[in-house]
C-alpha cells in the first residue's frame, strides 16, 4: 500500500527532524520542539521514541518548558519505565527548589508517574513536602498521597502517610484541609471498615471552620465528607445543620447540592415538628428552585435530585409546582425531567393548572416528550380523583387529533384509568374502538384488547373485534398474545353461546401452535379450567381486580434512602446505587440514612447498623387457599407442598395475568416460615437453562433445593456445580446428581446436600454465595444470598450458667439494640417460633410485668449470638438486645439476624 507507506515515511522523517530540534543549542528552538511533540501526542501520534531527547530538556529554569516536559513524562513514563528513571534525579532536585511553585510541580508530577522505581524515590520528597512551610506545596502533597495510594496502597500505609494526611486536617490553611479531606475520603472508600477519617466532634469542628474559608471546590469536598458523619445526638446534628445552612446561598450549585445532602441526612436525626425542623424544611425549598435558573446541564442534575427529594420529602416543594412548568426552549432532557416532577407534585390544589400545561405539551413536536405528556395526563387522573373526568375528556380530545403515537399512548393510559375507576367511563369505549386499526404498538394493542375483553358485555361486536386480532396471532408480541387469550376467555365466559368457536380457536393457537411456554401453559390452564369447572373458571377469570395504586414509578424505599445519601453525585443522576456502575472496590460500601437514636444505639459507626438494604428479604407468600390447590392439582408439574393458612391478598386473576410461571414456582415450607423459591439463573442469561431454588435445613443438614428447567431447543447434559469461597465455607457434599440429559422444556428437581468444611473467604454481604454451573453448552455464574437461618445449628442451646457468664463477658460495644414493630404474639408463641428455627430460649423471666426471653443461637462456624427479648404487655413493639463476642467477624450479620427475628415473628 503505497500511500500508507508514504505517510509512514513522512512521519519517520518528522520524528527525525523533531529529534534534531530537541537537541538544538538554542533554548527557544528546544521549547518549540517540545511543543510540537505535545501537539502530536494530543492527536494520538506515537512520539515515545523521543523519550531521551525530551527528558534532556528537563534541566531548565524555564518553568513553561519544564511543565511541557513533565506532561510528556506523565504520558509515556509507563511505557518506558527504564528510561523514566533518568528523570528521577531532576524530580528529587526540584523538590528542594527554593521556589514553592517548582517544589509543588515536582511532587505533583511525580505522583502521576506510575512506575514502581520512581514511586520508591517519591517517598522521601513527599514526606518533606507534607511538612513544607508553604501551604501551596502542602495542599499539593496531600493530593499526592491519594495518587500514591492508587499506585501502591501498602506503601502508603507502611510509610505512615495516612497519619500525616490526618494531621493536615488540623492545618492552618483551609485549602490544605480541603485537599486532605478529599484525599482521605477517597482512600477510605477502599477501606470501608477502617475509621480512616476519624470523624469526631473535634475534627468536625475543624472542618466546619475550614468550610467558611476555603474555595468553592474545597467546600464541596468538606460537605461531601460531612455527609458521611453520624452525629451522636440531635443536638450535635442541629448544630452542624446550623453551620451548613448558609452554604445554600452559594453561587456554585454543587456546594448547594452537597449542603442539601448533609441537611437531608441529618433531618432524619432531628425531632419532628419542632420549630427548627420546620424552619429547616422551609429553607431547603428556595435554593432548590434557584438551581433551575442555572445552565441546562446543572438544571438536569438538579432535577434528577429533586425527583428523589420530592419522593422522600414531598412537603419541601409542594408549593412550587409552577417552576417545573416546561419552557418552550428548555432542552429535551430538562423537559422530560420537569414533567416527571410535575406529576409527582400534582395534587387536588393545583391539578387544573397542571392539566392545562400537560394539554399544551401534548401538542409539541418531540415524540418522546408528547408521549410522556399524554401518559402524565393519565397518571393525574389516577392520582387525583376529582380530576379524572377532565383528564378523560382531555385524552379524548387528543385521540381526536388522530396523531398516531398520541392515540396509542392515550389508549394505554385509559386502560389504567378504567382499572382505577371501574364502571365510570365506559361510555367512551366506542370512541376508542374507532381507532383499533391504527394501533401498531404492542402496548397499545394489548391495552385495547384488554379493554374489549373486560367490557365485552357492553360492546356489541366484541367478538368481531377480537377475532380480527386472531388472524395474525403468531406475528403478535407475547404480551398481545397473552392478553388476547385472556380477553377471549373472558368474552366466552360472558357470552358463551356465540363465542364457543372463537375460544376454541384461540386455545388451540395458544397450546398447539405456539412455542412460547408461558402462552402454552396459560392456554392449558384455561382449557382445563373451562372444561372441568366453568363456575370456578368464572370466579377466577372474572373476579374483582385490585385497584391499581395511585403512585407509579416510585423508587423502592431502601434504594431511595441510599440515593438520598448520594445527592449531587452520579448515583443520584442515574438513580442507581454506585455499585451498579462503578467497578472495583469504590462505591461498594453502601450508604444508609442515619437512624434516630433510641431505637438503635451503636456508638461510632451507625452506618453498618442502618436498615439492611442489601439483605435479601425472604418473601413470605400468603397462601392462595383452595383455589390455588385446585389449580395446582392439575398435572402441570411435580407434586407440590401446598402451604396452609388463609389471608388471600393477591387476586387470582392478577396471578394469571402475571403468567403461569409464578404459580408453578413451588413454595417450600420450612419450619414455620416459607422461603420463596427464586429464579437464580434466568434462561435468557444461560442459553436456555433456568435454575430456580432455595436453601433449607432438614434434620441437621443443609440443602440447596433446585429446579433445572431446559427452555432451549436442544437437550442438556454434563451438569456440574461449584461454589466460590464464601464466608461460611459452604461446599456441596456430593457432586450434582443429574444422570439423565435434560430434554427441552423438561425440568428436574435436585436437592443438593451441603456442608461447611470448605475454604472460607469473607463475602459482602456475609451470606453471599457465588455459584458456577456447567453443562455441555457453557459455564454459567450466578450469586445468591443464603438465608442465614440455614446456618443456625441444632445444638445452639447454651447452658444457663454459661449464658449468664458469656453475656457479662461481652463488652457493651458489641451489643446491638433494635425493635421489632407490630408483633402481636405472646412470649410462648415467640419462643416456639424461634425454637423451630434453632433459636433457643434459655430462660424466661417476668420483670415488672414485662416478659424477658433469653435466646441463644449458634452458627455453623461456631459463633454464638445471644439475645434478650423484652415484651411489654400491650406494646406490640418488642425490644431486642443482641450480643456476640465476635462482632468483627459478623459485621452486618446482626442486620441479618435482626431481619430473621422480624421474619420469624411476622408470618
Amino acid at each position, binding site marked *: 500500500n503505497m500511500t500508507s507507506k508514504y505517510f509512514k515515511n513522512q512521519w519517520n522523517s518528522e520524528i527525525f527532524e523533531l529529534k534534531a530540534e530537541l537537541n538544538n543549542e538554542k533554548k527557544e528552538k528546544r521549547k518549540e520542539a517540545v511543543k510540537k511533540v505535545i501537539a502530536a501526542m494530543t492527536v494520538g501520534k506515537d512520539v515515545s521514541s523521543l523519550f531521551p531527547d525530551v527528558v534532556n530538556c528537563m534541566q531548565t*529554569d524555564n518553568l513553561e518548558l519544564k511543565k511541557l516536559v513533565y506532561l510528556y513524562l506523565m504520558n509515556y513514563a509507563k511505557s518506558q519505565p527504564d528510561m523514566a528513571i533518568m528523570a528521577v534525579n531532576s524530580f528529587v532536585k526540584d523538590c528542594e527548589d527554593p521556589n514553592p511553585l517548582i517544589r509543588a510541580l515536582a511532587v505533583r508530577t511525580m505522583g502521576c508517574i506510575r512506575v514502581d522505581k520512581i514511586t520508591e524515590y517519591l517517598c522521601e520528597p513527599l514526606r518533606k513536602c507534607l511538612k513544607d512551610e508553604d*501551604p501551596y506545596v502542602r495542599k499539593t502533597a496531600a493530593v499526592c498521597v491519594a495518587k500514591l495510594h492508587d499506585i501502591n496502597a501498602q506503601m502508603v500505609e507502611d510509610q505512615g502517610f495516612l497519619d500525616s494526611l490526618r494531621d493536615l486536617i488540623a492545618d492552618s490553611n483551609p485549602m490544605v484541609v480541603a485537599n486532605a479531606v478529599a484525599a482521605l475520603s477517597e482512600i477510605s472508600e477502599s477501606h470501608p471498615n477502617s475509621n480512616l477519617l476519624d470523624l469526631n466532634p473535634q475534627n468536625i469542628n475543624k472542618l466546619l471552620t475550614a468550610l467558611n474559608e476555603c474555595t*468553592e471546590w474545597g467546600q464541596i469536598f468538606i460537605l461531601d465528607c460531612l455527609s458521611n458523619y453520624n452525629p451522636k445526638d440531635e443536638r450535635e446534628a442541629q448544630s452542624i445543620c446550623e453551620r451548613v445552612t448558609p452554604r445554600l446561598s452559594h453561587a456554585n450549585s*454543587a456546594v448547594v447540592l452537597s449542603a442539601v445532602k448533609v441537611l437531608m441526612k441529618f433531618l432524619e436525626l432531628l425531632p419532628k415538628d419542632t420549630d427548627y425542623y420546620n424552619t429547616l424544611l422551609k429553607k431547603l425549598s428556595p435554593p432548590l*428552585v*434557584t438551581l433551575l435558573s442555572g445552565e441546562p446541564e446543572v438544571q438536569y442534575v438538579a432535577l434528577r435530585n429533586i425527583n428523589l427529594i420530592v419522593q422522600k420529602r414531598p412537603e419541601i416543594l409542594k408549593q412550587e409546582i*409552577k417552576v417545573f*412548568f416546561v419552557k418552550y426552549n428548555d432542552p429535551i432532557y430538562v423537559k422530560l425531567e420537569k414533567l416527571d416532577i410535575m406529576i409527582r407534585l400534582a395534587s387536588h390544589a393545583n391539578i387544573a393548572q397542571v392539566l392545562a400545561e400537560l394539554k399544551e405539551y401534548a401538542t409539541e*413536536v418531540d415524540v418522546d416528550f408528547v408521549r410522556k405528556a399524554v401518559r402524565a395526563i393519565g397518571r393525574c387522573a389516577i392520582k387525583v380523583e376529582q380530576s379524572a373526568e377532565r383528564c378523560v375528556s382531555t385524552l379524548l380530545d387528543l385521540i381526536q387529533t388522530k396523531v398516531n403515537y398520541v392515540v396509542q399512548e392515550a389508549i394505554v393510559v385509559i386502560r389504567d384509568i378504567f382499572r382505577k375507576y371501574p364502571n365510570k367511563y365506559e361510555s367512551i369505549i366506542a370512541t376508542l374502538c374507532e381507532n383499533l386499526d391504527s394501533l401498531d404498538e404492542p402496548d397499545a394493542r394489548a391495552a385495547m384488547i384488554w379493554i374489549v375483553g373486560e367490557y365485552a358485555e357492553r360492546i356489541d361486536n366484541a367478538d368481531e373485534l377480537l377475532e380480527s386480532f386472531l388472524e395474525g396471532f403468531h406475528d403478535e408480541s407475547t404480551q398481545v398474545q397473552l392478553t388476547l387469550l385472556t380477553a377471549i376467555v373472558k368474552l366466552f365466559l360472558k357470552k358463551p353461546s356465540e363465542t364457543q368457536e372463537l375460544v376454541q380457536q384461540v386455545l388451540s393457537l395458544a397450546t398447539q401452535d405456539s412455542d412460547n411456554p408461558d402462552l402454552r401453559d396459560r392456554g392449558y390452564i384455561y382449557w382445563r379450567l373451562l372444561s372441568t369447572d366453568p363456575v370456578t373458571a368464572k370466579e377466577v377469570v372474572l373476579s374483582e381486580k385490585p385497584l391499581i395504586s395511585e403512585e407509579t414509578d416510585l423508587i423502592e424505599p431502601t434504594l431511595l434512602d441510599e440515593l438520598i445519601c448520594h445527592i449531587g453525585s452520579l448515583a443520584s443522576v442515574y438513580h442507581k446505587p*454506585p455499585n451498579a456502575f462503578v467497578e472495583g472496590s469504590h462505591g461498594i460500601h453502601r450508604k444508609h440514612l442515619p437512624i434516630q437514636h433510641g431505637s438503635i444505639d451503636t456508638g461510632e459507626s451507625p452506618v453498618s447498623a442502618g436498615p439492611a438494604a442489601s439483605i435479601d428479604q425472604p418473601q413470605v407468600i400468603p397462601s392462595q387457599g383452595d383455589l390455588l390447590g385446585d389449580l395446582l392439582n392439575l398435572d402441570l408439574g411435580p407434586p407440590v407442598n401446598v402451604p396452609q393458612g388463609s389471608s388471600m391478598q393477591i387476586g387470582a386473576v392478577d396471578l394469571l395475568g402475571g403468567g403461569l410461571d409464578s404459580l408453578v414456582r413451588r413454595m417450600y415450607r420450612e419450619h414455620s416460615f416459607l422461603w420463596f423459591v427464586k429464579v437464580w439463573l434466568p434462561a435468557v442469561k444461560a442459553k436456555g437453562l433456568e435454575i430456580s431454588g432455595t436453601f433449607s435445613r432438614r434434620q441437621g443438614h443443609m440443602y440447596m433445593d433446585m429446579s433445572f428447567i431446559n427452555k432451549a431447543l436442544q437437550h442438556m447434559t454434563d451438569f456440574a456445580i461449584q461454589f466460590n469461597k464464601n464466608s461460611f465455607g459452604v461446599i456441596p457434599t456430593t457432586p450434582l446428581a443429574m444422570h439423565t440429559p435434560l430434554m427441552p422444556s423438561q425440568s428436574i428437581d435436585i436437592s443438593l446436600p451441603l456442608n461447611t468444611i470448605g475454604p472460607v473467604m469473607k463475602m459482602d454481604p456475609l451470606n453471599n454465595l457465588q455459584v458456577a454451573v456447567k453443562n455441555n453448552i457453557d459455564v454459567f455464574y450466578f450469586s445468591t444470598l443464603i438465608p442465614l437461618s440455614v446456618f443456625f445449628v441444632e445444638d445452639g442451646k447454651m447452658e444457663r450458667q454459661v449464658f449468664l457468664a458469656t453475656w457479662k463477658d461481652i463488652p457493651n460495644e458489641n451489643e446491638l439494640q433494635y425493635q421489632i414493630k407490630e408483633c402481636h404474639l405472646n412470649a410462648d408463641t415467640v419462643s416456639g417460633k424461634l425454637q423451630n428455627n434453632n433459636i433457643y430460649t434459655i430462660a424466661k423471666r417476668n420483670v415488672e410485668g414485662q416478659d424477658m426471653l433469653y435466646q441463644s443461637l449458634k452458627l455453623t462456624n461456631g459463633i454464638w449470638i445471644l439475645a434478650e427479648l423484652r415484651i411489654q404487655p400491650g406494646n406490640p413493639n418488642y425490644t431486642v438486645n443482641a450480643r456476640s463476642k465476635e462482632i468483627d467477624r459478623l459485621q452486618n450479620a446482626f442486620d441479618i439476624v435482626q431481619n430473621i427475628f422480624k421474619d420469624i415473628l411476622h408470618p
Partner: protein
Amino acid sequence: MIGGLFIYNHKGEVLISRVYRDDIGRNAVDAFRVNVIHARQQVRSPVTNFARTSFFHVKRSNIWLAAVTKQNVNAAMVFEFLYKMCDVMTAYFSKISEENIKNNFVLIYELLDEILDFGYPQNSETGALKTFITQQGIKSQHHTKEEQSQITSQVTGQIGWRREGIKYRRNELFLDVLESVNLLMSPQGQVLSAHVSGRVVMKSYLSGMPECKFGMNDKIVIDKQGKGGTTDDSGKSGKQSIAIDDCTFHQCVRLSKFDSERSISFIPPDGEYELMRYRTTKDIILPFRVIPLVREVGRTKLEVKVVIKSNFKPSLLAQKIEVRIPTPLNTSGVQVICMKGKAKYKASENAIVWKIKRMAGMKESQISAEIELLPTNDKKKWARPPISMNFEVPFAPSGLKVRYLKVFEPKLNYSDHDVIKWVRYIGRSGIYETRC
C-alpha cells in the same frame, strides 16, 4: 473524581486530551466521539455512560468539552468545573474557538495541570491564576522570594480571588443591576408564571483590601429596621421593599454573616465579577402586556391581531422591542399592517417579526396580519407556539433598589466618600411569552 478531560472540535477531532486517572484509557477519547459527537441519534442527556465510563459534556459554540470518570463523582461539581474551565479560557483568550484552542494549547495544558490535580478541582479564580500562569512563561528566577510566597498564599489563601497591593489613583466602582423578567401568560391574560431572575454585577477599581457592605431594599432587612422603631414611616418603606425568594452569592461574600444578620459583606475581586444572583416572584412589574387574537378563516387563512401595551412610567423609554408571532409551516403568504415600527414575515423562521426601536410607558400599539395557508393533508394540527417578546427597560422589574454600597479600607487613607460610585438598572426580557 474526574479521570480525564477532553476538548473536541465539531468534527470530533481531539484538540486537548488530559488524562488524570489510570482507569481512563485513550479509548475513552474515541468512545465519546463515536457515541456522542457522531451518534446517529442526537444524545439526549448531558451525562452518558458507555462501557462503565461516564461522560459529562458541555458545548460552547461548536466546541465540545468532555469530562470522563469511572467513579461515582459529584456530578454537579463536574459541570460547575466545566463551566469554570470555560470562564478561565475566556478570560485568557476571549472566545472559545477551534483556532484559539489550537493556538493556546500549551497554555491550556498548563492551566489543566494547575486547576485539576488528580481530578480534584483546585483554585480556578482567574485573578489568582493570572499572577503565575501567563502566556509569556515565567522564568523562575524572575520572582523574588516575597513574590513567590505572595503567589502561593494567594492561590491557597482565604481571599484567593484578590491579590494584595492593588493601587488606583481614582477609587471607583460600578454596580449594574441586570434583571431578566420571565412571563408565561394565557391567551386570556392570566399570568401562568412570572419571575425575575436578577444579577448584581460589580466592577470595582479600589485600592488595597477594601471591606464592602452592600444594601438593598430587601423586605426582611427593611421590616427588621422598621420594627426597631427608628423611623416612623415604616409603612412607606415597607411598600418599597421587595420579597426575595432566594439569592446566591459570589464566593467572596461571607455567607454565615448573611445567614445570621442578612447583611452582605465582602472583600471584592478586582475588576468585573458577579456579586449576587436573586429571584423574585411577587409584585413583579410586567413591562409589557401582549393581547393576541388569532382567527382561522376557513382552512387556508388565518387572521392575527396583536396589541402590545407598555406598563411603566411615561417618562421612561423601553428599547429594542421585538415581538415574534409564529406562523404555521404551510404559510404561503403574509400581509402585515403595523402602526409603529417595522414588521416582516421571515419564512425561514416561520414567524412575523415586529420591531420597534423605542416606546414610552403607558402607550399601546398594534399589528394585524393576514396569513395565507397552503392546503395540506397533514392531519396534525399546528401547535401554535406562544408569541414571544424581547425588550430592554431602564428599571428593575422586580422593584429592587440599591440602598448603599459602603467601602472601608482601614489601612489606606481613603474613605467611603472618596469612592466614586455608579449604579445602573437594566431590565431585559427573559422568556416572555403569551400563548395564543
